[in-house]
């Protein structure tokens, strides 16, 4: 059988469309089927992409939205100043428009992030070196403070004193850096 569209190549795709009870048969070659949008794109995953699933997940928040309606403004009218994306658009597309969207929609993000990342809402991995100088120190400081508490609890005061000195010098360093950055 020859493809009914191009009338050149052999038809390899055969299917029947039923619209309002009206039956139409198609016999097309792969190329024409693709051109006429009868086939998925060549990796066949556009209809079931992660972003579609994600958009579904974001819309699923409707009941919660009503609950918070009194406390917060309706999120649908929220709009990012930098890129003009609205919260409603974000839930449709499943993607942010720019860095500032994260700040604009910040209030509504934790439940979404929790659902996507097994309950996590805060980063605990790599920090860029360039802007990370101060962040690195703060992280180190937090770890040391925790260590200090553990040592005190175990009554290892000599080592605790060492850690305390380390904490002090880190705090000094942070103060200096803080002024330098301003």
């Amino acid at each position, binding site marked *: 059988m020859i493809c009914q569209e191009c009338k050149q*190549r052999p038809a390899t795709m055969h299917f029947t469309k039923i619209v309002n009870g009206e039956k139409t048969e198609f016999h097309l070659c792969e190329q024409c089927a693709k051109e006429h949008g009868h086939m998925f794109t060549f*990796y066949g995953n556009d209809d079931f992409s992660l972003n579609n699933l994600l958009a579904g997940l974001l819309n699923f928040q409707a009941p919660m939205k009503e609950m918070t309606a009194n406390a917060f403004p309706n999120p649908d009218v929220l709009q990012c100043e930098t890129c003009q994306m609205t919260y409603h658009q974000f839930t449709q597309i499943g993607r942010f428009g720019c860095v500032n969207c994260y700040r604009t929609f910040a209030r509504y993000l934790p439940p979404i992030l929790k659902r996507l990342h097994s309950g996590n809402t805060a*980063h605990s991995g790599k920090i860029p070196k360039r802007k990370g100088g101060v962040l690195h120190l703060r992280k180190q400081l937090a770890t040391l403070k925790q260590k200090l508490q553990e040592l005190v609890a175990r009554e290892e005061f000599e080592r605790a004193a060492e850690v305390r000195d380390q904490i002090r010098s880190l705090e000094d360093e942070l103060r200096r850096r803080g002024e330098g950055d301003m």
Partner: protein
Amino acid sequence: MSFEKFFNTAVSAWMSQEGPDSDIVLSSRIRLARNIVDFRFPTLFSSEEAKQIVALFERTFAHRSYGGAGRFELLKMSELQPIEKRVLVEKHLISPHLAEDSPFGACLLSENEEISIMINEEDHIRIQCLFPGLQLAEALEAASELDDWIEGYVNYAFDERLGYLTSCPTNVGTGLRASVMMHLPALVMTQQINRIIPAINQLGLVVRGTYGEGSEALGNIFQISNQITLGKSEEDIVADLHTIVQQLIAQERAARQALVKTLGIQLEDKVFRSYGILANCRVIESKEAAQCLSDVRLGIDLGYIKNISRNILNELMILTQPGFLQQYAGGALRPEERDVRRAALIRERLKMEDRRKMEGDER
């Protein structure tokens, strides 16, 4: 172009080299998603912004060499032929999304094809390192070093609490996707895979076919990757995946031994029948080719077939994809023509093995 020449230029290092556990793990990949401050995300950036980003990377990185990976070359999607783009997708060097839906997309590709940096895909850049065998930690180290190098020239979008900001909330935090490509024929044959996949999914990992989301597991090859990018460190994400992969390797090995014991000569028969098909076919569809290649590879791993290199599965799974076949043919092919070409290419490749073997014997 002679077959051997085409073949040698088509195969990248990760396909032909062996790595740890490479009887089961074909490759390890690390991808880092990064964005640059002052530009809107590719979701809705202007073509002007897109061009500026490409220009920035072209100016800063194109033609520069990086460690042992060689020089970077910048490929603009708008300047490539559809077949060329498809070949890059089939080699896993760029994503289908970059090839098809990113009009201002580009890619910085290292000479050894171990590193590719996709530009203007879903995020401004996606750094990707591809290693043979199970080498997740090594790939992470390489990707992270490259990340530091790039960071010396651009200002990344980073938030103290949320980490690296990405256009999709599924990647925020580390922006890290670690994945391994595994050949699991015995788990498929014993149908254990049907129980294993849901279990893996519950652990926050994703199992997919070879070419990503929604693709079929052709040739019993599965891609396993992390889903969660926020709240865990890069090292922990990779270590968790590594642990699961090692368990899968153990299960696959056990299933292979069980198959050898229970099926014996029947398994050997299946392997050699598939070899017979590949060595003699004149027309073959990609699905059948993938299944036969998987059987032959299993036969090599089990010692039934000798004198054929193991990489035949990695190489031919990729070289028999439509893009490669068309590049080899030097033009567009209809699906039926592809099936003829595919059969010819597989036969050629197997003959190449014989030639190599004979040369080896003479020496």
